[in-house]
């Protein structure tokens, strides 16, 4: 009985293809940094470098977000737990905030400049 056979390699390569395809879900992590908000069944795109306040309607009320100095956070939300507000500011590409009760999904895409000498957020 041979150890590794042709079928194994085919299955392995298929799995790799699936994984690479799933990486596409992170969207374009290059290009101009932008804030993408999914709410009300649509998607809004905001420039991360332009300060704005925007409000979105969801099943439990309104959720408003604020973009300031290249960062974004949830300013206020009518949801019960306020987890989205507690999530605080996000500024790096790939980061996201979700308000589950109100169905609002905020994420950053594009290339964001890491702070010089900055410490990784999850280091402790």
């Amino acid at each position, binding site marked *: 009985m041979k*150890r590794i056979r042709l079928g194994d390699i085919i299955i392995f390569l298929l799995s790799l293809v699936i*994984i690479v395809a799933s990486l596409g879900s992170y969207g374009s992590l290059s290009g101009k940094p932008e804030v993408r908000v999914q709410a009300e069944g649509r998607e809004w795109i905001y420039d991360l470098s332009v300060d704005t306040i925007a409000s979105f309607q969801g099943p439990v009320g309104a959720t408003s977000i604020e973009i300031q100095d290249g960062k974004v956070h949830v300013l206020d939300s009518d949801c019960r737990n306020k987890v989205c507000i507690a999530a605080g500011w996000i500024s790096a590409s790939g980061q996201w905030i979700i308000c589950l009760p109100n169905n609002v999904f905020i994420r950053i895409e594009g290339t964001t400049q890491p702070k010089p000498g900055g410490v990784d957020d999850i280091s402790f």
Partner: protein
Amino acid sequence: MTYPSKSRQVRIEFVALLAACALFLSTVEYLIPKPVPFMRIGLANLPLIIGLGLLKEKEYMLLALLKVLGQGLVTGTIFSYIVLFSIAGTIASTTLMYIVYRFFNRWVSLIGVSIAGAMASNIAQLLLSRYLLFGAAARLIAPPFLVVGLISSILLGIFAQQFVQKSQWYNSLQEGPL
């Protein structure tokens, strides 16, 4: 099932033995600390991979059911919605592994079977979380989830393949009482 009663008894006992192994391995897996809850090794699937060469269809389904029950019991999730993920993953992986083993046995070793099972299980669970829990955001957890599944399934597959080739117990079972 139409076995003589003696042989049938032996086979049922063998299913029970593999199910007991799955229960034990679930406990071991539960003890291992994980950085994120969804990162799993899938140790409890080992009896399901090894059982492929020895069990008939119905016995294999019974083993899968017992594994879900045992795992739910050990992790304490048996009466919560989390058990749905376990059921979905196990049905998807056992079905695919059984098909791959039965029809492509000539070209695929247990390593390939293991990878196919892990991918099927992970994709089923991702789809479930897509529609049940997180919505579209579920795709963000997909890549790490699938990568971990791929790596751990390769290791499990190598172990299972070695075991099936080298174990005298396994080979005596294949020729003898079963």
